[in-house]
């Protein structure tokens, strides 16, 4: 075996190590963001107290413990879980549909959730309490949208363009239906709908956190099983087929999985835009197309975006909680424009 081959293999291993280091570094920044998220709020808690209360050591301030464990921790962790779900979903969608603009938001899934939620807010929850009815309706509407997208897609052999166009058509449809609901609602109900649509982590508690985390934890390994097939898809559909990747079946299975993950996340926190679109691009710039690393980094980047947006949402206007969906969009839009101008978008 020649020395040149050994050198090329070593260079590849070094690249893999750099990517792992990038993952570790992002996780570390994320941990810092999590602690900051826990410390900020109406009462600014000293970092030392936060760490002390989290570690459960004796001597921690009881008030701090209560604020942390029953209020801030579920919200902060929800930001991470939803961020991971949206980041990974966006990355997978962009790859599957060969479209840099694909994300749960642009394909109408979030709009469908918004419509479902406004329906439940407006007309009540068929006997269920709103705390169950609203996320339940959002979830069902998202699944319905996904079923329509996949149904239309299947008629055309899951061609990427058909799936994207079906998604965009649904985006407009559900936006229109959402507007109709708002138009017909009384001012109070209308405000509730608007608040839901803006997306907020304040709805998080331990129960819905557990559900979202469980769904994400089940879906992620199932997606990661396809990491080599997804990487191959980056070379174009024709070549992926040539290399034996069952493209249509992969699209069908993975889009269903992503929709389930997104539907659960969005149902509990409302529509949060741009994380699913921008986090994967950021990850791609840092780490390349090897999906073994790209999917985890997209998840971490999504979590980092949402977690830092959560911190900002509490400090931008002192004493007020700006909906986190607004913050992600306000940060996301200029960043996205910069990405476009820098011509770094693939495709």
């Amino acid at each position, binding site marked *: *075996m020649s020395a040149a081959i050994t050198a090329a293999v070593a260079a590849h291993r070094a690249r893999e190590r750099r990517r792992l280091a990038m993952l570790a570094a992002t996780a570390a920044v994320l941990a810092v963001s999590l602690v900051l998220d826990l410390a900020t709020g109406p009462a600014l808690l000293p970092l030392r107290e936060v760490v002390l209360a989290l570690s459960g050591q004796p001597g921690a301030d009881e008030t701090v413990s209560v604020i942390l464990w029953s209020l801030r921790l579920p919200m902060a962790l929800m930001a991470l879980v939803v961020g991971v779900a949206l980041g990974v979903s966006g990355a997978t969608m962009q790859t599957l549909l060969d479209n840099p603009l694909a994300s749960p938001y642009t394909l109408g899934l979030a709009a469908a959730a918004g419509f479902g939620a406004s329906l439940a807010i407006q007309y009540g929850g068929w006997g269920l309490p709103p705390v169950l009815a609203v996320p339940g309706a959002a979830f069902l509407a998202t699944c319905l949208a996904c079923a329509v997208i996949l149904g239309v897609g299947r008629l055309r052999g899951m061609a990427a363009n058909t799936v994207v166009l079906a998604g965009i058509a649904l985006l407009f449809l559900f936006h229109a239906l959402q507007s109709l609901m708002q138009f017909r609602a009384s001012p109070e109900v209308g405000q509730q709908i608007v608040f839901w649509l803006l997306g907020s982590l304040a709805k998080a508690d331990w129960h819905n956190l557990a559900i979202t985390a469980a769904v994400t934890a089940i879906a992620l390994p199932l997606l990661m099983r396809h990491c080599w097939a997804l990487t191959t898809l980056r*070379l174009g559909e024709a070549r992926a087929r040539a290399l034996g990747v069952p493209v249509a079946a992969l699209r069908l299975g993975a889009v269903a999985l992503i929709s389930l993950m997104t539907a659960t996340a969005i149902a509990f926190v409302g529509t949060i835009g741009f994380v699913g679109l921008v986090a994967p691009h950021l990850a791609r710039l840092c780490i390349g*197309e090897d999906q073994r690393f790209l999917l985890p980094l997209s998840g971490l980047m999504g979590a980092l975006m949402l977690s830092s947006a959560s911190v900002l949402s509490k400090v931008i206007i002192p004493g007020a909680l700006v909906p986190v969906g607004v913050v992600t969009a306000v940060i996301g839009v200029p960043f996205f424009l910069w990405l476009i101008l820098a011509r770094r978008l693939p495709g």
Partner: protein
Amino acid sequence: MLYAEALTLRQGGRMVSRDLSLAFPRGAITALVGPNGAGKTTLLRALHGEHPLAAGRIALDGEALNPTTRRRWQARIGYMPQESRAAAGLTVLEAVLLGRAGTLAFRLPEAALREAAALLEEFGLLDLAGRDLTTLSGGQRQMVFFAQCLARRPEVLLLDEPVSALDLRHQQTLMRALRRLTEARRLISVVVLHDLNLAARYADRIGVLAEGSLRVLGPPAEALSAPLLSAIYGVGVRVLWGEDGHPMVQALV
């Protein structure tokens, strides 16, 4: 032996090939030539198990191609389509590795990496191993995709215009490698070529396709006849004989 029997292929309702029967032996290169739209690419895609058969049958060593055998079938084939798109963020070495995407574990085995690097070395591309695929020229990329095909350790090679973007030297490099590998590994090689002289020089047999039917299949000297080529291409053609005994085709313009 790879067989296609009484094959009828349709594309969007249009008949692409009708009643096509061909056999491709082991250890030989069969070149498919013919004008644009003759159905060459569709035939390759059918042989790969991607294009549905309207009628007829395809078999490899007695095993028929059908939906239940398709996965196993495709694992035995190295198919190089014309598409040469590349995504930024993949290195040349990674692209070659993806030839084996179906069998790779989450953690890459050392042997797979070494094998991919060895293929690059064979084509003089090892210097580019760490380069981003998008920074390569079209020709270099085509060589990388050829290496990717071989990384699959195929029994059958189906190459769709593999030299279309290559300069003169790299055309010879690729075709010579194909010649050598076909003989050494007893591959069934099927190559779609537009360059008739390249086909004459390297192929054992040439199949001339026009309007979806096979006009002739035989050794270059037999298949490349001036009257046939003139008729199917619609230009005057002269066939000369090179010093090495291979026919040379010249268009009369």
